[in-house]
């Protein structure tokens, strides 16, 4: 069965819906669009759609991905068009490509994500940019994480900050653009990074919005879109 990989946005008020809600919403949109999706066998059939790493509630994104198994190969532009007429406002498919046979799943291929974090610093001045740069050059920053069994452990987040694209400070407004390790091998949530920044630098950020610019595949020192790399 052909598998199509679809890139989509999750913006506006849909950033407040959970991953589970998103899955349900996409499944129903696909049904409304009458796309011939494949179903799982068994007593409680579900459409065969798989996703990349979940987005936290409250975080918007312009680069989410899903793989959908369909019964017959359809023109990808037509498919996107059809899907977009049935998606709720805020969610929009932006590109698609058929996945070659034998490709790896989104979950196993995605290992990074680019985030933009935007907020107002309190207080508004005091060498904000320098203090932020200093934070990112620290050798280690440990945060406490709780594993699935409820055990607490200390994790160094510095190795999980893969790149710093932008540190912008203007009139007390701070914009950070960072690439963080994301996925099953290592995962740094932007909210945890933010917590560590506040703790280490003493800069308090208010009215924060976090946007995921896109999920990425890191190969060597280069980053690719999941529409470019399949294995």
């Amino acid at each position, binding site marked *: 069965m052909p598998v199509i990989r679809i890139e989509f946005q999750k913006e506006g008020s849909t950033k407040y819906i959970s991953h589970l809600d998103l899955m349900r919403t996409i499944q*129903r949109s696909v049904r*409304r669009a009458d796309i011939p999706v494949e179903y799982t066998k068994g007593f409680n059939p579900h459409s065969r759609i798989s996703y990349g790493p979940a987005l936290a509630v*409250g975080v918007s994104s312009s680069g989410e991905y899903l793989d959908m198994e369909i019964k017959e190969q359809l023109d990808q532009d037509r498919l996107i068009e059809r899907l977009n007429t049935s998606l709720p406002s805020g969610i929009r498919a932006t590109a698609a490509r058929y996945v070659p046979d034998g490709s790896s799943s989104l979950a196993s291929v995605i290992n990074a994500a680019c985030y933009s974090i935007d907020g107002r610093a309190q207080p508004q001045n005091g060498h904000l940019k320098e203090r932020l740069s200093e934070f990112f050059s620290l050798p280690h920053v440990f945060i406490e994480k709780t594993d699935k069994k409820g055990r607490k452990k200390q994790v160094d987040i510095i190795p999980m900050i893969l790149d710093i694209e932008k540190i912008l400070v203007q009139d007390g407004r701070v914009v950070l653009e960072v690439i963080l390790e994301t996925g099953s091998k290592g995962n740094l949530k932007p909210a945890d990074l933010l917590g560590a920044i506040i703790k280490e630098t003493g800069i308090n950020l208010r*009215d924060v919005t976090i946007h995921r610019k896109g999920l990425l595949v890191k190969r060597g020192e280069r980053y690719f879109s999941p529409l470019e790399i399949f294995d």
Partner: protein
Amino acid sequence: MTSKDIEGLLNEVEKPARYTGGEYNSVYKDKEQIDIRFAFAFPDVYEIAMSHLGLRILYYLLNMREDTWCERVFAPWTDMEDLMRENGIPLFALESRDPVAEFDFIGFTLQYEMSYSNIVNMLSLSGIPMQSSQRDKGHPFVIAGGPCAYNGEPLADIFDFFVLGEGEEVLTTILDTYLVWKSRGGSRREFLERAALIEGVYVPSLYNVEYRDDGTIESVRPISDRFPQRINKVIVRDLNTVFFPDKIIVPFMDIVHDRIILELFRGCVRGCRFCQAGMVYRPVREKNPGILAGQAEKLIKNTGYEEVSLSSLSTSDYSKLQPLVQGLIQAHGGKKVGLSLPSMRIDSFSLNLIKEIQKVRKTGLTFAPEAGTQRLRDVINKGVTEADLMIAAGDAFEAGYDNVKLYFMIGLPTETEEDIDGISDLAFKAVDKYFATDKRNRGRNLRVTVSTSCFVPKPFTPFQWQPQDSMQSFKDKQQRLKSKLRHRAINYNWHQPETSFLEAVFARGDRRLGKVLIRAWELGCRFDGWKEHFDYGKWSRAFEECGIDPDFYALRQRDYGEVLPWDHINVGVSREFLKGENERALTGETTPYCREGCINCGISELFDGGICNAGD
């Protein structure tokens, strides 16, 4: 306040999707082009509100009008409420996020007495004066419908008016009347007086209640002859032609009934004497299966839902259930659309139907014998015998079901210890039935769940004159069952008697309870239907401070001569019929169900012209 301020709160609350709006099929209009802004209000959280069929119907019905924009507003959960109060954000409608205080109408649906404190809370959050008499021209009209509106007396000071019966047609008349009034610029009182002349509209401020020394009611009279002595409910005469939406809002988050609901019929042919719905929703009117099939087709296409529920008060009484079900499976089974049949009387016919629908998946089956002995089942006119039940349970076990739920009420009129013991006997007989079933056919993991609720006598039922059982007696009976129902396969669930007591007070309450409600809210009561929020101590204090004895409402035996707070409301079923049924109950005499012959409940006198389909 702006939409941006609300966004700021959404990051901090549990389940923000309750407040975002923007779901697929939600309706957005240009408010500059609108004459009437209507907020459909449901006094509970999103997940419950969005499951309600009435909302789904009226939302689209009102939005069909080009001059009207109907939006939704629900009770914010307590975390959201705290943030709204902290940040000075008033109650807003989900679609426009505009404050509902700016609307023309706020229409509450009253489904459950325990949601009343949420109504008060929502009005408080909106900044609209709590009492009808305090509102002026700049305020919306705050109105209510739904089953509890039939005795809305405890809320008489709050609501400007009640809509009694089915809203589809009367709402249109109300809005048309409103537009005329608005264009003439009349007073608030003028509109209310005009509305009071619309069939089905009850304006409580135009009626005076006199009390006797013993606390009972002397009379309820309109303040002028221009207004009707008795207010009749309204109904839709033909369900085949009445509006039904061809789409519904598809929520982002999981809601309680996350599926398409088809309404097979209104009313009920059964005459269970405890059941208010079975009385107030009469007459029986069926939709024909062709119409239903068409509605299902459009709804499935426009929502992408994967499940259709065939709903009504007693789904197995739909006369064309089998062809309807087969037609739906044939048309939509290939697209993995499942059917669910709630409110089924389980017998071998319905079991076969359920098997056909569910094919392989064996979920639980629910039986509602309601009472533990045949004597008491006769008292309540629940036409189910133990033999019926055991045959059905046997068939179910034989078919591989191993999860059975049994629903009962305790505290029914004339109940004795024997009836309580009958509940546990039935549970054990079900267990025995399972072990008598061939091992190769039965499921592996028997679960018999026994649930008992505490009986609440309701207005417009034969038991409207009966006292409720005392809280202590409920607790003793629950204790007795707890000790009897000890078996590894049996679970026992029970209800808090305090909640049922309060429900009984408000169900048959009068206008004097209004101040208790507001006092209880001031003391912090809200979400009383939610165990984690219900605080009987606060209610108790509110009654005491207002000098009102709740036992007067819940525990008192009324005589037939007493003027009941809802006697000036006419639901069609006559007082004489209810009285007769109560008498028959006390002697254990059953009444045949409507299919066997008309029992002259009175409904056909209110609505003549052969509306009632019960005999068809």
